[in-house]
């Protein structure tokens, strides 16, 4: 597959052989053609400090943004606008980032359809997060939401409009009025049916106005990057680094994310010895197409579609006798997983179930669900009027990531207090400022991107000035990364990258998916630890350095592994059910008080005996050993006078 991908590229190659040392002076001159640094061409120095076989190009900037999705672009041009010399390093072209696939809307309490207040949005988000979200970050996000949407609209994003010309807002899951008591709120703004696509293009177009240097198709390890086009190593020195690399859906066998969602930012942070937060909270959807990963809407079941197992039985009748196939998403996901575990799955590996729609009249399907036959044919290769669609629970979003405060600064927890890591910031799906907590509400993640992308840029502008002197760097900094690169490039073990990756994905899907219980998770942890060790036995085939997709996929696999082991260990340790993390053996939420009963007379549980806290996971990259610590949830909002915090309660919809 690596060779096919390489062959399809139109770029010309000059393979850098092992013995040739490219003289320092000639790199800039003769290879300028390949360099594609957009923007400032000065201050790129080549040095032999790390290795003579891998000449390193040194760059100096005021700020580096890793990742050019919605959050990364917003941070990059926010910084450029503030006058900072910014580099945006991305492994994909900006408009190819996974944000482009986000077709839903973006929530903001603009109040165009009815009277609305951002404090109600705040309440809905806190409740949706199952009280694991940091209320100061949620306060910040929901208060900034109307301004952020108006700003996007001023950048040229073509939102849909009402007759009066105001932005049209529609009702979408989980949004209510008057703190849950006023009925459904209409808060979701959209751009026809491609909000994420339009957002990314708008931000990209806007960012070209500023002097950001784009380094496209550079794969990052720390702030050392491999240029995939010509195989050169680049070191980016900057006082400020923003991580906006997205989620890590690809650790699971079935996910909606692109192949490029490999949690690179989380892995970089882990290798730096910093924790990742709440990685066990992964959002699943029950009916994702087997193999393709696209989600089939719940409307199919709403219109009469049924889920069947290998015996042709409508198994939901056993799990939810009343609601049957219309039970809530987590019940359906768990039932499907239990059926598969008990051996009643379909297909050659018995690892999925069928969604049957052919018993419904085709006319009805065409009118109520237009386009579904096209979708089923393209992604599943089935004729929906004759055959059932193969489905299984699929990962959609990662609530966890790099822990930050509401300003976007990365934090770590030492001595019982949150401590800011100077110079490092994170935003978007890669970060966990914890606005989503244990469960993300629909249409909040695009909002999260723009608000916190902007927040990172503002915080950096507040605390630093453009052209600040850089702190001294060891000449051999990044040596480990280059050594790792070299080791992988010439790896000659027994297992291919694709094999190890498939093992990891299948294990995660079987053990750390929707159905979580002590024994299953423990078994999964042991298997994942063993698979982590097999990374030493990896075999790569492409020995070149130019557009070596084998090497890049192996680097991505290392990143995925780090995310996967943290996810499963954190899930195994958390002995409660909260939001997206639901366990069969611990079905209730374990808070400091039992909120289902009146608080009067209850004794507060000590911190180490309840679970309303964030998990912080550390990994030793050499051994793969995971250590877990915890950090309390921030319960106070930014301004208690303006917006009181929401005390925990039982979450029921």
């Amino acid at each position, binding site marked *: 597959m690596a060779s096919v991908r390489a062959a399809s590229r139109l770029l010309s190659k000059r393979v850098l052989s092992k013995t040739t040392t490219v003289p320092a002076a000639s790199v800039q001159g003769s290879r300028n053609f390949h360099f594609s640094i957009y923007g400032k061409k000065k201050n790129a120095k080549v040095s032999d400090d790390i290795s003579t076989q891998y000449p390193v190009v040194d760059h100096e900037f005021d700020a580096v943004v890793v990742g050019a999705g919605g959050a990364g672009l917003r941070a990059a041009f926010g910084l450029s606008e503030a006058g900072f010399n910014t580099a945006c390093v991305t492994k994909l072209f900006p408009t190819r980032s996974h944000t482009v696939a986000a077709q839903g809307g973006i929530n903001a309490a603009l109040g165009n359809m009815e009277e609305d207040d951002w404090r109600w949005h705040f309440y809905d988000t806190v409740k949706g997060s199952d009280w694991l979200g940091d209320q100061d970050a949620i306060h910040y996000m929901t208060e900034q939401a109307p301004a952020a949407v108006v700003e996007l609209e001023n950048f040229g994003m073509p939102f849909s409009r009402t007759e009066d010309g105001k932005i049209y807002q529609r009702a979408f899951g989980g949004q209510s009025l008057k703190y849950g008591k006023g009925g459904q709120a209409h808060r979701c703004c959209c751009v026809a049916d491609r909000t994420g696509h339009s957002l990314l293009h708008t931000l990209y177009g806007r960012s070209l106005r500023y002097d950001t240097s784009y380094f496209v198709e550079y794969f990052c390890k720390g702030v050392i990057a491999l240029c995939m086009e010509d195989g050169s190593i680049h070191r980016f020195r900057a006082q400020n680094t923003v991580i906006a690399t997205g989620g890590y859906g690809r650790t699971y066998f079935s996910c909606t994310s692109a192949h490029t969602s490999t949690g690179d930012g989380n892995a970089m942070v882990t290798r730096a010895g910093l924790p990742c937060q709440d990685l066990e909270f992964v959002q699943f959807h029950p009916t994702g197409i087997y193999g393709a990963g696209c*989600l089939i809407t719940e409307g199919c079941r709403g219109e009469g579609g049924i889920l069947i197992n290998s015996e042709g039985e409508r198994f939901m009748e056993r799990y939810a006798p009343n609601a049957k196939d219309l039970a809530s998403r987590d019940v359906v996901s768990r039932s499907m997983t239990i059926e598969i575990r008990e051996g009643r799955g379909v297909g050659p590996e018995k690892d999925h179930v069928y969604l049957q729609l052919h018993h419904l009249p085709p006319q009805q399907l065409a009118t109520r669900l237009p386009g579904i036959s096209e979708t089923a044919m393209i992604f599943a290769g089935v004729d929906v009027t004759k055959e059932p669609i193969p489905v299984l629970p699929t990962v959609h979003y990662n609530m966890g990531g790099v822990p930050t405060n509401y300003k976007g600064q990365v934090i770590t927890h030492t001595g019982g207090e949150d401590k800011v890591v100077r110079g490092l910031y994170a935003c978007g799906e890669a970060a966990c400022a914890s606005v989503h907590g244990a469960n993300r509400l*629909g249409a909040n993640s695009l909002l999260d991107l723009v608000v916190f992308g902007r927040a990172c840029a503002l915080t950096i502008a507040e605390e630093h000035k453009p052209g600040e002197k850089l702190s001294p760097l060891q000449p051999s900094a990044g040596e480990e990364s280059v050594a790792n690169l070299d080791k992988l490039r010439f790896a000659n073990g027994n297992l291919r990258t694709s094999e190890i990756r498939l093992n990891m994905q299948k294990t995660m899907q079987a053990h750390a998916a929707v159905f979580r219980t002590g024994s299953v998770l423990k078994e999964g942890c042991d298997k994942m630890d063993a698979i982590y060790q097999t990374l030493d036995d990896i075999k790569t085939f492409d020995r070149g350095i130019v557009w070596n997709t084998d090497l890049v996929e192996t680097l991505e696999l290392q990143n995925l592994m780090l995310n996967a082991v943290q996810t499963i260990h954190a899930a195994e340790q958390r002995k409660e059910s909260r939001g997206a993390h639901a366990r069969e053996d611990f079905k209730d939420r374990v808070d400091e008080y039992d909120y289902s009963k009146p608080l009067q007379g209850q004794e507060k549980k000590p911190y180490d005996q309840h679970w309303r806290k964030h998990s912080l996971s550390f990994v030793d990259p050499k051994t793969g050993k995971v250590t877990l610590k915890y950090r309390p949830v921030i319960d106070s909002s930014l301004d208690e006078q303006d917006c009181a915090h929401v005390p925990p309660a039982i979450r029921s919809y």
Partner: protein
Amino acid sequence: MFVLRSLFTSARRHVVSPSLTVGRVFPGCSRAASGVVKDKEPLKKAKTPQGRFDSPEERSKEVLEKFPDDVNPLTKEKGGPRGPEPTRYGDWERKGRCVDF
């Protein structure tokens, strides 16, 4: 006439790369060498974007039809998603695919 005919054939040989000159050459020649061109089959349009948009009947019927003037008749939303309301089942649905929930 002889000169124009040869000009016509030589011009056709050069129509390998799609370009604006295609459009310009043929009408001119067909007007001048009228008897010659009418007997031949209608010339295929180049697959340039212009060529494709010129004949709307070639485009396949889209599953989700565009609203007249891009305004949804029920909700009066301008520039909104085509087809039935995407959030009608509680998630964001398009062509049977769920994109947000």
